């Protein structure tokens, strides 16, 4: 499993990589995962939906990441763009 993070001016960077079946590597993945969530990032796992269509799944903890997921992508949390106009 790879933990990737989108970064301005760079594209994605690999934060951590490891086999979740190996306890030590899983621990490292969990630590990196928590660090990113603490920094306010959102985490998504690209998945395949029924019918062959691809989708993504937002996860809030490492336990929610499917065991067979190849990647978890972190990206900055959404913020409203242009402010609401007051009438």
């Amino acid at each position, binding site marked *: 499993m790879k933990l*990737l993070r*989108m*970064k*301005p*001016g*760079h*594209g*994605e960077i690999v934060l951590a990589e490891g086999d979740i079946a190996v306890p030590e590597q899983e621990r490292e993945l969990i630590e990196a995962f928590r660090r990113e969530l603490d*920094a*306010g990032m*959102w985490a*998504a796992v*690209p998945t395949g939906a029924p*019918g*062959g*269509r*691809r*989708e*993504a*799944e*937002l996860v809030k903890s490492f336990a929610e990441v499917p065991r067979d997921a190849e990647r978890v*992508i972190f*990206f*900055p*949390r*959404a*913020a*409203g*763009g*242009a*402010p*609401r*106009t007051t009438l």
Partner: protein
Amino acid sequence: MALALGTGAVILVALLWELMRPTLMRAVARGREIWLLCRRSSTPRSYDPGRERRAEQRARALLRSCIDEYDWAMYRDLGFLRVWGGLGERGRGDDATYAYLIYPHKPVVAYLPQTGALLNEYCVAFPDHSRPYGSSRLPDSDDVLAKWMALTADERRLIAEANMHLPGRQVDPDRVRHDLVRLSSWERKHLVCNRRHAERVDSVHAA
């Protein structure tokens, strides 16, 4: 008497100044250092077109690896992505009641596929406040991928975070309508190409 008091006061002030001068000088020097550091960190690093281009190439590769081949071809050829809305009666899919157009660094536009009527603009951004290269803006394709992931994973949450406006606030409605025409023409061509390709494969297998 007054002269003696005045002289004493002047001497006292001079002595106090001599005592406080090193501390004051140190404080001024430290303040100056802090000000310089703040100024340096707030100055944006120079724009490097090569770095931005490499970042965009990486982002495109990541986007391509996450979305369908069909959607990738759409983004590559048209510069935007269509995502079916999932909160309608018919759910997400080709017969969804509404859909979104995702543009890089522009609001997400909701529309009705049956009529082409524009519904709303959802202004949403993904600013990285760590500003690693002096900018909080993700590469274009990363912005599209972030919107795509958030919409397909938790549409309600993304829409709740966004600022909703009527069409035309930031994206020109005429441009969106033109893009919808381009999309429908692109889909027709894509369908014909796929059919021809399938026929060719069948004929090769038959031979």
